[in-house]
C-alpha cells in the first residue's frame, strides 16, 4: 500500500485515480477497472464452497437451498457429535441393562434436532427469508427431511451396534416420525426451538411412561401394535399445526403483538 507518489496501489483506488491510471499506462485502454476490482473482491472475500455443498447444490438443483441446508443448526458437526455421544451411551445402557435404550433415545434426539431445524423461532432472519425466491416452506421441507434422515441413520447404526431385536430396530421409526413432528409443531407455534425440544421430549416421555405403566414393558412405546394409529394421527396433526404456525398471517400476528 502507498506508492512513492503517496497514492494507494489498491485496485479500488487505481480504478478512480486518473494519475495512477496514467502511470500504469492504463489511460485510454478499454479496461473497466472497477468491474475488474469487483470481480477480484468477490473472489477474495468469498469462502471456498466445500464439496458437500457443491454436491448438494447439484442434487437439489439450487445452490441457495444447498447453502440453507448446510447452515441448519442441527446438522452442524458439533450437534452431530453430541447425538453420536448420546446414542453411544444408549448402546452401553442397552448392553448393561437389557432395556432398549437406543430405541427410546432415538426419537427424542430426532425431535430435538427437528425443533432446531428451521422456523420463526430459530431463524433470526425468518421474515426476510419469507420474501425469497427459494421459499421458506421449501427450506423447511429440505431441512426437516435431511435432519430426520440423518437421525434415522444414526439410530439405525446404534440399534445394530446395540444388537437389538429386529422388531425393535425398526419399531422406533414410526414414533420417531411423530416425535419429530411434535418438536417441529412446538418450535414453530411457540417461535422457540427450546420449547419445541421440551414439547418433543415431554410428549415422548409421557408415551413411554404410559406404555410402561400399562404393560410393565419399557419397550411398549417402540413395539408396533395398538399405538400405530396414535402415531399416524399425531404426526398428521402436528404437521398441520407446523404449517399453520409458519404461514405469514400467524407469524405476523405474533410479530405485531
Amino acid at each position: 500500500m502507498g506508492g512513492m507518489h503517496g497514492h494507494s496501489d489498491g485496485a479500488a483506488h487505481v480504478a478512480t485515480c486518473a494519475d495512477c491510471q496514467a502511470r500504469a499506462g492504463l489511460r485510454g485502454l478499454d479496461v473497466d477497472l472497477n468491474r475488474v476490482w469487483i470481480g477480484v473482491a468477490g473472489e477474495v472475500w468469498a469462502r471456498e464452497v466445500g464439496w458437500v455443498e457443491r454436491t448438494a447444490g447439484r442434487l437439489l438443483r439450487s445452490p441457495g437451498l444447498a447453502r440453507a441446508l448446510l447452515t441448519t443448526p442441527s446438522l452442524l458437526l458439533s450437534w452431530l457429535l453430541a447425538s453420536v455421544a448420546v446414542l453411544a451411551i444408549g448402546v452401553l445402557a442397552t448392553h448393561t441393562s437389557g432395556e432398549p435404550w437406543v430405541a427410546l433415545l432415538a426419537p427424542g434426539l430426532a425431535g430435538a434436532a427437528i425443533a432446531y431445524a428451521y422456523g420463526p423461532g430459530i431463524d433470526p432472519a425468518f421474515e426476510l427469508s419469507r420474501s425469497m425466491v427459494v421459499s421458506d416452506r421449501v427450506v423447511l421441507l429440505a431441512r426437516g427431511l435431511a435432519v430426520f434422515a440423518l437421525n434415522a441413520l444414526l439410530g439405525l447404526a446404534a440399534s445394530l451396534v446395540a444388537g437389538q431385536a429386529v422388531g425393535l430396530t425398526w419399531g422406533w421409526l414410526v414414533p420417531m416420525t411423530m416425535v419429530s413432528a411434535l418438536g417441529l409443531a412446538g418450535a414453530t407455534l411457540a417461535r422457540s426451538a427450546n420449547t419445541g425440544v421440551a414439547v418433543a421430549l415431554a410428549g415422548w416421555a409421557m408415551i413411554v411412561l404410559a406404555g410402561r405403566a400399562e404393560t410393565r414393558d419399557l419397550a411398549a412405546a417402540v413395539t408396533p401394535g395398538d399405538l400405530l394409529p396414535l402415531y399416524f394421527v399425531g404426526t398428521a396433526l402436528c404437521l398441520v399445526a407446523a404449517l399453520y404456525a409458519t404461514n405469514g398471517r400467524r407469524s405476523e400476528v405474533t410479530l405485531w403483538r
Partner: protein
Amino acid sequence: MTVIDERPAAANGANGHRPPNVAVRDLSQRFGRTRVLDGLDLEIGRGVFGLLGPNGAGKTTLLRTLATVLSPAGGSVRLLGFDPSDAGERRAFRRRLGYLPQSLGYYANFTVFEFVEYFALLKEIPAARVRPAVARAIERVELEERARAKLKTLSGGMLRRVGIAQAIVNEPDLLLLDEPTAGLDPEQRVSFRALLREFGARGTVIVSTHLVEDVGAACTEVGVMDRGRILFRGTPDGLVERGVGFAAGDSPLERGYGAVLAASRS
C-alpha cells in the same frame, strides 16, 4: 375521510401508458380484532416513494404485504405486473424484489459477505454472477473494509448497511425499505439517499421512515398514512404547502405532515 391526492397528472400509472409497478386495490389486513390496513388503494410508479406516519399507522404491515411476507386479508395486489397470489408469479416477482425489514435478524457468525451471498443465493441469482453482485452490493454500502468481518462484531449502523446490501444485491426493480436510515450517521445517510435516487431512476423504491428530512432529500413522492389509510399523497413540495400556517413542527415538511395528521383527526 378524504384522501388528498396531489400527484402530478403525468405520474406513472395515472397516464394510462405504463402500468404502475405497485397497484393495490381495497387492501385490508386485520389481526384479531384490530384492523391494520383499511381498504387501501395505492398506485406507485417509477421513483422514490416516501411513506410517513405515526407508530401503528400500518406502514410496516403495508411493506410486509408488498414484500409478499404477508398475504392480503382482502383486496388485490399487483406488483411489477405480477399477481403474487399465484405461486409461479410470486416467484418471478421475488426475483426482482429487494426488501429490508424493520428488524433485520442476522446470523451472528456469518461474515458480511456470507450473509449477503446467502440471500443472493436464495434470490436465485445465476451462480456465475453471485460473487460479483455481492461484492458490488457491499461496495455500494461502503462496507468493503468489513467484508470479511463477522456480523457479531459490527455496529448497529453497519448491520443496517448489511441489510441494505442484501436488499439491493439482485438489482431489484421494486425496493422496499422499512426504516432504512435507523442507526446511520449523517454522512452515511447522504450516501444512502444517493443510492435511493439511483434505484428510483430505474425502478420503484418505497421507503418507510420517521425521518422527515429523508423524504425531503430523496423522495419524488410522499404518502402520509394513519390508521391503515393513506391520508395524503403528493410531492414533498405539496406536503410543505399543506403545512403553511400550521404551528407544530421544526421544518416545513414536519409542519405539512403534522397538518395532514391533525386534519384527519379533527
